[in-house]
């Protein structure tokens, strides 16, 4: 029952209860003491009378009435004080709880369209300040996430707009000519198909990014993973890329997710490699190194490659079919598995990914 009341009412009730209990005990003790003090001889002495010469009945009545008056007076004063104290307590708690009420008002006004960076802290050295700080920290995280989401959606839209523009312009330019030849139609159709395929790849990657939850955990060896799919092997053969693989190690986690992460790294190693280049995959107990002899990454762009939609060279990546999501998928999967990854690269020489297990 108590839990359903407001904090202010609870404070007041508990404090008033304690208040009542203490004062009742105290008053009761005093009254008991008083009743034992009001003895016949004292009363007679107070009234300047002599016991022997007095009427015992008169004294007895006098005594009773004095006792009653005292009892009534003390009880009345007690209740008056209790009431006043409780009312005072009610207002004092209200004042003390004002920061909480204000914080509540501010938070109540927050919705998805109105996300403040932080809430003001009108009081210092207060428990409320801790709450406000915690709330502000949470708001910051939410804001960052929202901002990241917004950027992500903008980037995704941007990536989809380019193939869309190309399809639209090609069709509209074809339509300008009423007597376009079959060859022209075929050309526009093939351009449209290429662009649709690119959008399809992007949509697939976008979906993958939202479906990275861990499935069943298993322990398996690096070599058990199927990283090289037929398309990748085909691409390697076309470019005449030599693969060197040494050692093996055991991994724990979701096999399909880790396969995808390693496949993305290897795919980049193939995609950005030179003709007749090399790829080496070396496994130690707690480290896997994947190195290529490709175009490399400029030093100032190294930190950005794991960001969604970041491509070192936009048009080159686009013409090679990159969506810009590959490495950010890698980062997310490794993060879930507590796997660390670092990059070393030299332009025109190659790139080396160091994957540290159990980091």
């Amino acid at each position, binding site marked *: 029952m108590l839990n359903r009341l407001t904090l202010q009412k609870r404070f007041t009730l508990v404090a008033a209860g304690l208040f009542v209990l203490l004062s009742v005990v105290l008053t009761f003790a005093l009254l008991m003491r008083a009743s034992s003090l009001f003895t016949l001889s004292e009363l007679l002495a107070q009234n300047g009378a002599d016991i022997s010469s007095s009427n015992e009945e008169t004294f007895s009545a006098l005594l009773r009435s004095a006792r009653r008056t005292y009892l009534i007076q003390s009880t009345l004063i007690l209740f008056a004080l209790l009431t006043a104290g409780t009312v005072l307590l009610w207002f004092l708690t209200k004042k003390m709880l004002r920061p909480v009420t204000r914080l509540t008002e501010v938070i109540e006004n927050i919705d998805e369209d109105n996300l403040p960076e932080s809430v003001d802290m009108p009081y210092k050295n207060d428990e409320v300040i801790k709450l406000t700080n915690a709330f502000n920290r949470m708001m910051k995280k939410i804001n960052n996430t929202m901002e990241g989401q917004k950027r992500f959606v*903008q980037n995704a839209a941007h990536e989809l707009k380019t193939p869309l*523009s190309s399809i639209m312009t090609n069709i*509209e330019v074809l339509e300008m000519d009423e007597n376009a030849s079959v060859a022209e139609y075929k050309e526009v159709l093939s351009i449209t198909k290429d662009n649709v395929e690119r959008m399809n790849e992007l949509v697939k990657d976008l979906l993958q990014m939202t479906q990275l939850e861990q499935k069943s955990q298993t322990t398996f060896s690096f070599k058990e993973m199927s990283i090289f799919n037929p398309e990748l092997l085909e691409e390697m053969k076309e470019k005449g890329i030599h693969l060197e693989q040494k050692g093996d190690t055991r991994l724990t986690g979701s096999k399909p997710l880790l396969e995808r992460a390693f496949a993305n790294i290897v795919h980049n190693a193939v995609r950005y490699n030179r003709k007749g280049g090399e790829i080496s995959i070396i496994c130690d107990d707690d480290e896997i190194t994947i190195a290529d002899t490709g175009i490399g990454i400029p030093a100032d762009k190294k930190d950005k490659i794991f960001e969604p939609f970041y491509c070192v060279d936009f*048009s080159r990546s686009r013409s090679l079919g990159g969506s810009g999501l590959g490495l950010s998928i890698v980062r997310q999967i490794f993060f879930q598995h507590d796997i660390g990854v670092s990059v070393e690269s030299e332009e025109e020489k190659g790139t080396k990914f160091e994957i540290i297990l159990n980091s």
Partner: protein
Amino acid sequence: MKLLIIEDEQSLRDALCKGFEKLGYAVDTAGDGEAALSYYYGGLYDAIVLDLNLPKMDGLEVLKAIRDENEEAKVLILSARSEVENKITGLDCGANDYLEKPFHFKELHARIRALLRRDYKIRDNEIKTRDLTLNLALKKVYSTTGEVALTKKEYGILEYLMMNKGRTVSGESLIEHVWDSKVNVFTNAFKVHLTSLRKKLPEGVIGTIRGEGYYVE
């Protein structure tokens, strides 16, 4: 009229080039920022279509380089960046117009026409001289007896002369604005086109000033 189209996405670049060539423009294309500038320094363009995400040199840098040299050049930014901030930056850097991708080709053409009209104090899509009317939107020419069928080059020459109505235009300048940079046009080839154009038009529309050039009154 000669356009420079700077766009890194090849299939879009080719489509734009084809579309504008169908409309009778002379078109040069560039796929990256550096190539764009070398084209720009080497030719005379009536309008430039510029993408912002370019390899080698960002679109905005290209725009600044163009503006450093020429404050009159007409530049339309064609970009997938749709946020208001990007449009503001683009226009503040000196672009004359900003069109967001994906776009309709007809709208792009209309905006290019609007840009081309600016210099010539022409508010209408139709330019008239004597009994001749030239429609810039339809790319057609009409005389009192009906439409005059012109080839693209003939139309291009007449359009440029009509846009510069009342001014004398040199033969070199006409070649610069009507032919793209891929072909080497000799004065003779130009004169062949001019002669056949004159034959199709009422007499005396295109006047000649020896040693200086040609004019339309």
